[in-house]
């Protein structure tokens, strides 16, 4: 874990920006055409914020989320995570940040089908060098926390969508990340389990996690502190919801 601390040194002070983007661009080469997915994004997110990113499909939401999640590198511009410029990092260091500092929650859950609930939650810890006992214990705690105390040995295929998403949330919390990135977390769920998931995410934010969610769901957006609307790769507007 010490290795990670050097790479992404976040302070717990709530007013310091946890991430900062300056004139960030991302282009994809599609044959001979250059597709400009993100155009000069300037964005600052503070530690502990709850931010919803909205926009029509093709507006670059997912790319922005991948960028924040260090799955991708910008074509130009700067992206500071803490005081670290992600554009300058090696692939291994990006992996380390993803594993230790960022928790992912996906629309399609993205659990590994061969593994049971506990093993799925253990995956991120596995890459951070937890011992088997430590990670098993923590995985159980997390599973209980998201309300799956009686489902330890179940495979994802034996769980409902809402339960699967809870496993995914538990997994995203495994390494106690600073940022949780949720990509349409309720997109594949019925409204009841959707609202359950939302309330879990909300609780996490209350506990001080920075939460960034991409969504079409106005319900999520209304619960967020700030809504960022994208259009054609640019930030169209940002609004702060009043509490």
């Amino acid at each position, binding site marked *: 874990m010490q290795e990670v601390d050097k790479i992404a040194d976040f302070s717990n002070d709530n007013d310091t920006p946890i991430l900062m983007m300056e004139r960030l661009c991302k282009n994809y080469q599609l044959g001979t055409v250059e597709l400009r997915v993100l155009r000069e994004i300037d964005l600052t997110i503070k530690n502990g914020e709850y931010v919803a990113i909205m926009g029509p499909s093709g507006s670059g939401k997912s790319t922005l989320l991948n960028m924040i999640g260090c799955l991708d590198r910008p074509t130009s511009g700067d992206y500071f995570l803490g005081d670290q410029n992600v554009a300058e990092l090696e692939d291994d260091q990006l992996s*380390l940040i993803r594993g230790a500092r960022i928790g992912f929650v996906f629309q399609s859950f*993205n659990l590994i089908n061969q593994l049971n609930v506990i093993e799925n939650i253990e*995956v991120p810890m596995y*890459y951070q060098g937890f*011992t088997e006992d430590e990670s098993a214990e923590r995985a159980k705690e997390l599973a209980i926390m998201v309300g799956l105390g009686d489902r330890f040995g179940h495979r994802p295929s034996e769980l409902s969508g809402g339960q699967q998403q809870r496993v995914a949330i538990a997994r995203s919390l495994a390494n106690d990340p600073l940022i949780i990135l949720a990509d349409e977390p309720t997109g594949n769920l019925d409204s009841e389990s959707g609202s359950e998931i939302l309330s879990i995410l909300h609780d996490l934010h209350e506990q001080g996690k920075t939460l960034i969610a991409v969504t079409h769901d106005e319900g999520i957006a209304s619960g967020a502190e700030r809504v960022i609307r994208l259009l054609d790769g640019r930030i169209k507007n940002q609004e702060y919801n009043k509490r």
Partner: protein
Amino acid sequence: MFLFRLKRTVKLGSKSLWMHKLRSTLTALGIIFGVSSVIAMLAIGEGASQDAQEKIAQLGSHNIIIKTVDPPDDQSSGGQQQTMKEYGLTYADAERFRNGIPNVQVIVPNRRLSQQAQYRTRRVAVEVVGTVPWFPEISNVRVKYGRFLSTTDMHYKRGICVVDEKLVRDLFGFDDPLGQDVKITSDYYRVVGVVTEQASDKAANGFEDKDATGAKKAGANLGCVYIPLNTARNRFGEMSLQISAGSRTFEKVELQEIIVKVSEIDLVMGTRKSVETLMSRFHKKSDYEITVPLELMRQAKEFQRIFTIVLGSIAAISLLVGGIGIMNIMLATVSERTREIGIRRALGAKKRDIIFQFLSETLILTLSGGIFGIFLGSLIPFLVTHFGQMRTVITTGSLVLAFGISAGVGIIFGLYPAYRAANMDPIESLRHE
């Protein structure tokens, strides 16, 4: 830390292999057959080689054997005629070797005759060997009980003999041969000792088949009667009559065989040259043949080496095919699990973690294939020995080699699929259905 990771990776790998039992088994079969054929082939090759070398070694690695051979007829032999042929090694040759060649320890001149031996009422065909007292020193014949011929026997041309175990069985049955008299032609010989059998004629790859001159040697495996050389010279003379296809030939052969023992193994080849020079000076006809067991042994080794290479290559090809099968399956596995790779990458797996994961799966597959292959490969030579009466030798080296090769195949053929898995774009793989 590393060991702990290794343990988990192995656990993970075995788990996902276990989920596709049939596929994993079929894939490992390629390696199992490859490894077992390497072991079996090497064992059969090694067995054959040791067999040949042991038999050659029985002739004595320090020895040079000079033998009498019937020279090709230089004049046309037509119709019914009585001819007199004089050829072969002479006592003078033996004397020349003794005096003229340095580093020669023992010279054993041998006279071999095929005769009938009679004990009481039983008669069997035997080979009579007229030889010298120091014969056991350079041959593989060992005295079992009694004694061998002595110099006194030699000097006084005594009518005594030493018989080998085979003859004891054939002729005496359950009687104690010591002190008994054996009748050969018209003379009696008293048995003073029993010796072990000489290496069978087949052993020397037929080099001793030409021994018989007096009569055609029907059964190769005859019992031997050893009598003093001087006695043989005295009683049998040097003439023999050969009657074949209506023609009668008198043959005069003094000695059938001279064995020269060289003091040091390094000098064997040099001494062979001296022997050749000496022989060619005194023998105009090519009525002799020089055999050097050491040379045979070297040839056998060289032949063996080629044999092993050929067998090994065939086996290696089957391993290669197995390896390609493994690579094929691993590539399929990788593309099947693209999404899992994407998930793992997003959750903090480094490229080398992914490489390690897939490589370890391949290695588990090939190494367990290797272990089963070793069992199967050890079983095959056993069956070959049991049913095929062929000698096989499984060396530790071949086991280590086969296991090493299977590990090597795992690494070589596992590396590319693993590398491909690690270099997939995480975003793309997450989207993969």
